[in-house]
């Protein structure tokens, strides 16, 4: 697969430039737990609070007896599509469309370490262990809201340099939520940071007995690294995505073609100077 990807010239349109997320073949899968509940969240996010438009994703949070997995339904859809195409004998497959959040996180229901995977650009796939915080929540006794027919109460917390407001449903006494959030006396149905850079809102909740799968991607692009490596890589990527891609393609800038806003191909050295404003979710 790596060879196929390397053979392709990469055409990138700078207009909607965010991240080119690549599908993965998910035929090697191990069930690690059984989900008792599945929550679907719509996630609206942007890479910097100063950017006007949001990207959309649909996140699935599977809650099992031992593990909680949070992943992008959109990426999973394209992964299954690609796997099916390859199974049928195709030589290549469709890439992920839209701009889903390329993070997958599996954490134990108790415990402080999560296994995370971040798909960055077409090649790099960061695999790392991350910490899960114990959050100190402040409960508000008066504010209520109704989400999906469930009455929700408000709680606030501070985590990794941001203030969060969460709405949780006491009717659903599950101490979980999206990403690393949890520890409330009810399932978090909505949570957003003070700058509204990340907004999760539940759009579905159901009982389940689907397996929680752990996928082994055998394309050699996985990079085991530490949390600080991930942060540095992301900062480097957003500072100059084009330079990052050229470096990723083995430094051969002839294989990367950048299409500008006017639809015309741009000079790579000019394009390399362009950066994307970025503020990480966790400000450490």
């Amino acid at each position, binding site marked *: 697969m790596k060879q196929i990807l390397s053979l392709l010239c990469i055409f990138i349109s700078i207009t909607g430039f965010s991240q080119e997320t690549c599908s993965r073949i998910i035929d090697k899968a191990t069930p690690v737990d059984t989900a*008792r509940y599945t929550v679907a969240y719509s996630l609206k996010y942007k890479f910097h609070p100063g950017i006007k438009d949001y990207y959309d994703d*649909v996140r699935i949070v599977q809650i099992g007896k031992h593990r909680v997995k949070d992943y992008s339904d959109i990426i999973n*859809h394209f992964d299954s599509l690609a796997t099916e195409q390859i199974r049928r004998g195709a030589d290549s497959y469709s890439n992920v469309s*839209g701009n889903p959040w390329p993070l997958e996180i599996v954490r134990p229901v108790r415990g402080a370490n999560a296994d995370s995977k971040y798909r960055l650009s077409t090649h790099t796939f960061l695999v790392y262990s991350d910490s899960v915080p114990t959050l100190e*929540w402040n409960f508000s006794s008066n504010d209520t809201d109704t989400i999906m*027919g469930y009455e929700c109460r408000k709680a606030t917390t501070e985590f990794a340099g941001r203030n969060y407001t969460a709405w949780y449903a006491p009717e659903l*006494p599950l101490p979980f939520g999206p990403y690393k959030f949890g520890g*409330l*006396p009810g399932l978090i149905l909505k949570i957003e940071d003070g700058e509204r850079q990340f907004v999760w809102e539940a759009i*579905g909740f159901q009982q389940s007995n689907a397996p929680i799968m752990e996928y082994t991607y055998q394309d050699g692009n996985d990079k085991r690294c530490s949390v600080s490596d991930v942060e540095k890589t992301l900062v480097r990527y957003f500072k100059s995505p084009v330079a990052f891609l050229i470096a990723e393609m083995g430094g051969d800038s002839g294989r990367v073609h950048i299409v500008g806003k006017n639809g015309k191909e741009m000079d790579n050295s000019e394009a390399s100077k362009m950066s994307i404003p970025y503020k990480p979710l966790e400000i450490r």
Partner: protein
Amino acid sequence: MQQRLITFLISVWLVASAIARTSVSGVVKSADGNRMDFVSVIASPSNAPKTILASVFTDENGSFQMSVDSDSDSLILKATSMEIAPALITVPNRSGNYDIIVNKRTVELKEVVVKSKKVYSKGDTINYNVGSFLSNTDQSIADVLKKMPGITVSDAGQVSYQGKPIKNLYIEGLDLMKGHYGIATNNIDPNNIATVQVLENHQDIKALKGLRPEERASINLRLKEGVKGVFNLIATLGGGYGDKGLWNNSAIATYFRRNSQFLATYKGNNTGEDLSQELYSFDNDWSRTSNISTIAMPSAPGIDKRFYYFNRSHNATFNNVYRVGKSGELGINAAYLGDRDTRRSSSSTTNFLPDGGQNIVDENMGGTARMQKAYGDLTYMNNGDENYLKEQLKFDWSTTDADSRILAGSDDIGQRGTTDTYRLLNKFHMTHRNSVDRGFDISSLVNFEKRPHSLSVSPNLFPDVISGDLLHQHVDYRNISTENSAGLLSALKVGNFTLHPSAIVNYHHNSLESRLDAMCNDLALDHFDAGLGAEMMFNVRRIHASLYVPMKYRLFRLKNRLDGNVTDKNRCRVEPSFNFTYKVNSSHNLKAAASLNYMTPSIETLYSGRILTSYRQLSAYDVAGLYEGMNQNYSLGYDFKNILSMSFAGAEVMWNRQLPDVLYGSYYDGIVQHTISRRTSENSDMLSAKVHASQGFDWRRLKIGASVTYSYYDSPLLVQDEVLRYTGNSLGVNADISLMPFKWLAVSYQGNYSQSATQQEGYDRFPWLRTVTNKASFDFTIPGGVSLTTSLYHYYNNFNDGDRSFLLLNAEAKYSIKRFSFTLLCDNLLNRKTYVYSNLSALTESKAIYNIRPRSVLLKIRFRIL
């Protein structure tokens, strides 16, 4: 010193605050002593139970511990989890150990998930959640399909996905309807369907999966759990009054199980509901014969049929399918239709002649057609991974008896005609594939058809040619055909190229007998095709290209049995076709196609003895000979879809060139006309372009669809023994919108604008014909379970004299109680009596006035018997 004092004060404060905090611990246990893990324990002050002081979860041993800071005398400890009933205990605000005993119970989840996704996809399947598109007034699944982005339903009931008709419609994976799927989409209650699945590029023959690409999609209806294995019988009785008594009754029986399905329907009405449409087969099993003579009846105006259809119709259908073994299916489909149609119109037809003159025919026509038809299909199919077999036997029968009276100029003409058709069709298809993807594919079709028909006209409008005052003509047109092909799957594979060789043998025997006074025809035309073909396919990454080159030896033999004269013609023909697709990614798709083929001579244009083709047209073909014309087709297309944003779009450009050897036309002489023909080297071109887009929104269930079509043609025309050329332009814009702005209101709109004009070479262009159609419906749900629907129909035609706009209004009220549902329908509230319609096509302009069904009231009661 100062530093020591600060340290001392901080220590005192810390100790004091530690004393103020209460440390609460304990165990959460069930009544039988089991310790419960993951139970949420919340502490609240007893004087403010809504305030949360602390919240923890029990560990694996059911233990919890928390510290609470409160001045309340006592605390409320509340234990909740998904597996237990909430439990409350009140404890003193003192540190201590407090156990909570709980009862096991499962939390009931809310049934309605408010924002479940409307459209989602897995692999090549796109799922539409029916509940997200359904409104109160939807009667059948077809009503809901119309509101789904990417899907359109034609007036005839044909379902298309991305502008292309679907291949099969399945119910729970079984092909119950076999092409007659209009019966299912028109009658199945949408409340019984959970999901509509679009299976894109669905190769329904498992043995061909991955070997033969399929362009068309299929649709699968997934039923709700409660519907499976339950026998349903729903009846509707309706009665009312217009200018006479009205009735509209129906009964629908369904039974869907995993291994068998059953659907039977009966419908009957005289309220203008067309029952023939839903019996139409979308299988492309076209008839090999057609009527040589037709009984002139008022033609259809360009408005909804229910407004001008004065009918008395009944239909009954029976559909059954059983699973046989692991991969087999046995299906039976049968139907009957009885119909009487009475029409009345006054029309004026103007034919523009080469010398600049006009031929005008005024007709005042009233007639009744009585038709009965029936079909019966028996199908066996075995669709295994390696072997596919389909054997289908179809029988069709119909009889039509029509009479009409026409006032044309000073003539008062009476005519009567009958047509009977009998047809037996056998289709066989077999595919075998082995483990290395090699194998064969065989298909065969045998068709027997007979179409005797007659026409009687009085008085004789052709006294110069035929003697007598009463004309009586009998025509019999018969066909025996067999079409066979056999091919090898992946016989040769080199790199990305595969080659599928095939062989074809086709034989058609057509005969035509006619008798009109002393004029007779007795002809037989045999057409034999045999040849070899090769399909070359190239597949790499996202590109798929195929070139099919059949080389045929073609023999035609025309025998005139009256004089024993035999004309032969034989030659070799190559009819290549080329297809190319480039799947850019899951959203974008490019395609191109080109093909060339030859027209075959038809017995319908080879007879030399005169035949009365209508009461005022006499035909015979002087250009004797077996001529073949040529057709060339080219197309280029682009498709876009984005499931996540529910966006679907596409564009297509097509060019068609015809090079006919012979031109057929008319010679007008007063109200009568004669068919004429002449050899030609002229060609005709048609260029058309279409852009379509459809967008679904989560907001208020909004769907917007639009398409724009443009076509240009340049053709020869034979009129009064002269060959003219004419050009035409037409532009069509279609839009459809459905929206639910409030819970109590659903709105849908369909609009069409078209403009067209033709121009005869050397003359000025005819004025633009502009027509507009607007249909809007408003569904109101008012408290008490009553829904009201108002439908507005607006037609505009700029060629009409006087009132160019025409407005019709219908209203409907529906109320359901238990298993009864009452509907009160009021049609044509404005009580319009007639409709004027004008048209211009080629060099013929027509204007006609039609009678419209009067204002009427109908009450329908729908109830579930079983």
